[in-house]
């Protein structure tokens, strides 16, 4: 197990006074924050492994929040984003939400709205991380299978019997049975139903 890290809130706003004020507010609510005046600094310092969320201003000089979002979403571990905006442009907000923003808050933002959004984002991030971790673990198990065992597993999850598997793969039934046992052992499952669920999750994660 990876040791659980305290979540961090990454605040990005090119206005120093807004940045300081947001940092104070989040700190006063007990959150650990890191602030960035420039989106580029944030990108270069960004560690996707650190849990938490980002609070980003949409209208920044060097790079708009939307472009920053696109860059962040390119990674394997998307960072939940809460956008702050000074102008209520519907087009931009729709674009941001479509691109996966968790929330889109208008400035000036009340502490309740911001803290609730941050709480939710951290929760989302934690769940996503846990999920990714599980999937990662399952993938590791799957990758420990030999090519033949993977073929057998594909047959098992389709509900096929050892006899049918043996026929399809051109092996004897006894060998098929041994493969099935290895698959169940390596995948750490007791029932075919559990194996099917794992296969589904891996398939979903693979699609993403």
């Amino acid at each position, binding site marked *: 197990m990876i040791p659980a890290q305290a979540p961090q809130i990454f605040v990005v706003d090119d*206005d120093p*006074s*807004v940045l*300081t*004020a*947001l940092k*104070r*507010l989040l*700190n*006063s*609510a007990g959150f650990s924050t890191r602030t960035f005046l420039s989106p580029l600094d944030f990108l270069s310092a960004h560690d996707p492994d650190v849990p938490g969320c980002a609070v980003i201003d*949409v*209208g920044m*000089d060097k790079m*708009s929040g939307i472009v920053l979002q696109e860059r962040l979403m390119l990674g394997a571990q998307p960072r939940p984003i809460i956008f*702050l905006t*000074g*102008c*209520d*442009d519907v*087009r*931009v907000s729709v674009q941001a939400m479509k691109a996966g923003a968790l929330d889109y808050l*208008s*400035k*000036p*933002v*009340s*502490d309740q709205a*911001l803290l609730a959004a941050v709480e939710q984002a951290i929760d989302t991030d934690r769940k996503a991380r846990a999920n990714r971790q599980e999937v990662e673990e399952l993938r590791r198990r799957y990758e420990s299978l030999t090519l033949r065992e993977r073929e057998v597993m594909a047959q098992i999850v389709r509900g096929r019997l050892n006899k049918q598997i043996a026929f399809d793969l051109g092996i004897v039934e006894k060998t098929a049975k041994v493969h099935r046992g290895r698959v169940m052992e390596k995948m750490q499952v007791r029932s075919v139903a559990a194996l099917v669920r794992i296969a589904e999750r891996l398939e979903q994660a693979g699609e993403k």
Partner: protein
Amino acid sequence: MRGLEKGSPISPTAKALNSVFAHLSPESLTFLPFSAGSGLPRRLIISLLITAILLCLFALGEIFKTEGLSAYRDGVAILLTGSAAVMTLSAAQLARVNREREKLVRESVQHITQAARNAGIGLWGWTAVRDRFWANATFLEILGLQQNEGTLEDLAAPLDPEDRSRFSGLVREAAQKRDEWECECRLIRESGTGWVRFHINGASEIEEDQVSGSVIDITAQHETLAEAANLRHSLTHLTRVGLLGQLGGALAHELKQPLTAILSNAQALQRMVEHEDLDMTEIRAVISDIIQDDTRAAAVIQHLRSLLKPGEFHSQVLDLNDIVRETLELVHNEMITRRVAISCAADEARLPVTGDPIQLQQLLLNLIFNAADAMAGDKGGMILITTDRIEGPCAHLAVTDTGQGIEPDVLSRLFEPFISTKTQGVGLGLPISRAIVLSHKGRIWAQNNPGRGATFHVALPLIQEKP
């Protein structure tokens, strides 16, 4: 305001009228028939001579009293009578000719006076030696004077005190010089300030020390000009308000930044107090930041007010680069929304010019929005703003876009009103931009780029700054 102007251009009409009226005065008019008459008629002189000879002959006849001479005496008497008759007739004819001449002159004077009255032209003159002026009825009417004669001081009395001494000075100078002047002066009237334009003819060859001229009432003309200036001003203001509408969210953003900082700071403070987390250094810093951001918000509102206010032209020394910087801050968000990349390459040195910061900002906003509109719908539209020094010496501002460029037939009429290629355009942005540039004694021009898009250039005279 135009004060006294020496050697200002004189209209041909005024010139013609003034040459007609130049040396007309009541005095000279009265003596005109006599001075103008080319001596007594020759016939009268001849008949006088003949009469004198006959009288001599008659006297000789009386002296000698001879019988034989009686016929001679009678003859001479008859001739004498005849000559007297001719003389009487000639004298009568002379009187008639004189009467006719006098009538002709009176008529022409009347015609001139009438024409001047109908045209609303006041005629006047002034003799330096006696310090007396004369004037026609229209002149008195225009200036609101009661007496048609008096000193130069009396004549100038209805003028605004600021213009009075300058006018008198010019008239005195005119008495010494053969020249023409035109000057506009303000009048103090019960109904308000009036404006008159004097035409002054200096001393002539015929009459030294004599000044003459005309005057017309140009109050209405001045009011029309003032009205036009007002309208232009309102229009400039209205289009500026329109620009603010276009800026819309960007300005709101400017205001929301400090408000966000204030709210978050205040709420952080609230939480610190609730949790009794009282780090006094931090609390002081928070309060100081709140005050600072409040001041910042007030400054934004002040700026907004100045843009909305139909203020007068406030000329001051400013750095063109500052105008560019402030305007870019203003449009920044709007350009993000429009997906236009806007960048700036400002001259490193200051570009000091004299101008109204609000109007110059309006000018730049116009050019930026024009550029952005020219690229509406394009992907990856770019605007580049550059400032540098060019010959003149002038501060040079260029706004380059990557839009569709300007159609050749539009290019020549670009700065005329109501020429718009936009579906929603009124076509006043560029004419107003030009008006702003002209009022700053600058130049504005546009050209299509070799590649794509167009560039608008503005040149404003640089001023010398004290080191």
